[in-house]
């Protein structure tokens, strides 16, 4: 809907220009020192920001620039042209270098306009409170942050929705997580502004140094996190190299696990732990003899015992490493079985994660072609999961997975496989075997 987006860009620009002109006529000249000094800091913050939460829609993010705009409002609070000054400082937030380089003037006008109007709204609210201290000042700061957020979201929400051709609800679902930041960063910005007003430029220097170090720390954190993610990916590649016929298995198990976790209402932190645990669920395979892992046909009891012992040892060895300890619990057969013998000191959260991964693992094992059996139909896999719910599988997890897959209209299993390997000997239509530890329960 480019015409709607263009109309919104133009409207934001015209509205902001009108408001600024009207304020200039009625309230006199702004504080140019604040406009230039805070404006420059705002632009720097906008262009050298570190995303703490990266919004999925690629266009909606909240940066420290907002905090500095709010600080400028507190600094000029008592000036007659406080609202105008705030609007002009806010406009600097729209000067985003990548958009300037791309000559995306529509986006620049839109952003300068909507940021100026948002700052204007915050300044009007903040200056309407007459209290100069105490709790009323905090209430004024919160109200100003809310005013900024309301105007900002009312412009950005339709803009992003029209730009990406998405429904408003979908965009809001992505944006709402950053809403609390309006309050915390806005409140902090106004308080910092009050400190600056009282103490002068020294306060800015003393605040800027920790903030700069904080920014460096956050960006270093992002780099380290990225390196960690790549290391985990390499780990998964090494696990899958043990059993080349199950490539893509860990990613699918992680995806199904997230389906179940989201349906059961796990929070973001637990979902991330669940995802990593699901990716690592076959970690014990690393210590299992390859000749047994890739053996076509059923394992002998002796071979089965070797596989179990090596798998458990592999998990136990890696469990010595702190960050893998909880994942090892999720990966263990002991905790994956619903009627298994989970130790009483194992946290309930981890036991639930183990149940989730066990269901996801079994579903993928049944709906994928393996050396010993072609993929089963989705309905057959459902039936098998339901049949074993309450004994092998946690019935809540089984119901959740089936519900989500049906609601999403996704199809897996025979006729719908993505990764189909070329086997030297075509797998039989049905059967049991040894490939992949996830199938061992079914193989018994």
């Amino acid at each position, binding site marked *: 809907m480019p015409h709607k987006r263009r109309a919104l860009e133009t409207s934001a620009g015209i509205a902001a220009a009108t408001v600024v002109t009207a304020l200039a006529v009625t309230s006199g000249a702004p504080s140019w020192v604040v406009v230039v000094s805070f404006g420059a800091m705002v632009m720097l913050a906008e262009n050298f920001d570190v995303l703490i939460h990266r919004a999925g829609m690629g266009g909606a993010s909240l940066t420290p620039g907002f905090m500095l705009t709010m600080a400028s409002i507190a600094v000029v609070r008592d000036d007659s042209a406080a609202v105008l000054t705030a609007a002009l400082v806010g406009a600097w937030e729209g000067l985003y270098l990548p958009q300037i380089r791309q000559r995306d003037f529509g986006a620049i006008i839109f952003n300068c306009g909507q940021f100026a109007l948002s700052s204007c709204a915050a300044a009007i609210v903040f200056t309407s409170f007459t209290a100069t*201290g105490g709790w009323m000042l905090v209430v004024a700061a919160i109200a100003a942050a809310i005013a900024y957020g309301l105007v900002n979201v009312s412009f950005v929400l339709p803009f992003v929705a029209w730009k990406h051709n998405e429904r408003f609800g979908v965009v809001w679902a992505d944006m709402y997580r950053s809403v609390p930041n309006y309050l915390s960063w806005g409140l*902090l910005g106004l*308080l*910092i502004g*009050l*400190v600056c007003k*009282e*103490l002068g430029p*020294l*306060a800015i220097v*003393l*605040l800027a*140094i*920790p*903030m700069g*170090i*904080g920014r*460096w*720390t*956050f960006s*270093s*954190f992002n780099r*380290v*996190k990225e*390196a*960690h993610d*790549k*290391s*985990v*990916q*390499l*780990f998964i*590649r*090494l696990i899958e*190299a*043990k059993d*080349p016929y199950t490539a893509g298995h860990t990613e699918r198990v992680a995806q199904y696990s997230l389906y179940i976790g989201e349906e059961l209402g796990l929070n973001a932190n637990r979902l991330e732990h669940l995802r990593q645990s699901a990716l690592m669920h076959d970690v014990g395979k*690393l*210590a*299992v*003899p*390859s*000749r047994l892992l*890739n053996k076509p046909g059923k394992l002998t009891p002796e071979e089965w015992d070797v596989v179990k*012992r*090596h798998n458990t*040892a*592999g998990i*136990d*060895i*890696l*469990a*010595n*490493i*702190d*960050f*893998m300890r909880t994942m090892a619990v999720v990966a263990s057969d002991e905790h994956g079985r619903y009627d298994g013998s989970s130790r009483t000191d194992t946290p309930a959260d981890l036991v639930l994660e183990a149940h989730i991964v066990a269901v996801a693992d079994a579903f993928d094992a049944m709906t994928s072609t393996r050396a010993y059996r072609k993929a089963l139909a989705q309905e057959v896999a459902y039936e098998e999961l339901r049949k074993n719910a309450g004994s092998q599988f946690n019935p809540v997890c089984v119901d959740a997975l089936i519900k989500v897959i049906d609601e999403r209209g996704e199809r897996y299993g025979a006729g719908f496989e993505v990764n189909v390997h070329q086997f030297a000997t075509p797998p039989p239509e049905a059967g049991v075997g040894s490939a992949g530890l996830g199938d061992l329960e079914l193989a018994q």
Partner: protein
Amino acid sequence: MTTDRQLPAALVAALAALASAAIVLTAMLGEPGDAAVAAVVAVGLLVPVRVPWGGTVPMGNVPMIAAVSLLAHWNAAAVLGAAVLAGTVLLLCRRPRHDVVYASSRYAASAAGAMGAVLLVDLLVVGDVPMLANAVGASVGVLAADLLAARFASGSHDRLATRSALPVHLTLACAGILVAVAVDAVGVAMALVAAFPLLITRFSFDRYAGATDTLDQTVQALGLVPELAGLAPLGHSERSAHYARALARELGFDRAATTRVITATRLHHLGALPLENEESQDEAIAPFEMAAHGARVLRDAGLSAEVADLLVAARADTLDAIAPTLEAAVVRVAATFDELVGDDADAADRGLALVSASARDAHSRRAAGALLELVATEESLVADAIAAGDRFREAAVGLDLESVTGGRGGAGELLPFTRRG
């Protein structure tokens, strides 16, 4: 009480009584509110800010700087004395005894540094001393004393840890000065506002430290993969990394170089692992080939190109190579020494002799010399390395890990033992 050994109840009671008396005395002799300041400084000892590369700095440095800047000298001395005592008692209830001794002595040194610096400023400045000068002086005093105490009280000469703590110190010093200036200009209420950015700082350092730990552990886990596959002795990467860390410290490497050599040492067997079809590879793999393959794996995964280059340059696990850089020499000396010693501490002398004799270039000779020095001066070096590897070996007792890749690995053989499975 969660101490490592039960402290005599009488000692704890005596310390608690002394701390209480000190705070009461501070309240009686000083200005109103001095006792509250002492309590805040005491509690600050219990709130650490994590340094991303190890260690902590107490958040209490902030109120300490502010208190020394704002209070009269004798009042400030009484407040800090009471705070250190009270903080020690509080710590005794939460931490092992050796931690308490270390943390309290560091805190006491910081307090002494702050007081000493303010007195020095008093001597140097003619007339009334501006509060800001006191605050800056106190910050420098705290910083210098804490760095010295951290270095000597712990018995560690880890320059890397000392340098790494500087950003945290700088942040806390700025916050301390800001709090002092804010209280002086506006009042105590503004101190809370001025200290607010500290929460963000603490949060960001904490997250960074957590992420660094996790990355380190992921690399540790990756280093174990060839061992789980029977391509290297279990515990080899962990022991080698222990030697590499000690060598990096001994040779004065900076943080980035230390991380690089530890990572490369941990992953030097990565190239022995197949990433494609295992069945097609059954020939022995030479150290250079293993290093090149490992570097390729790292580059393909998008991991550090510098570590990949170091793997190739190091050609670890072979005595027959020239080290083009000191970092490469450290990786090779660490890995080779462990290859020769393994979990047998008695083999350390033979290992040292072989490593030294085979050092043909200047870098290798320097690294081997550093190892000789370390083994001579740090008696527990080899024992600690063996203990680090042992925790992984315990879980595999009774298992034949060589069978994992069909017995093609030669765990325990002298170089080159690695074969592609």
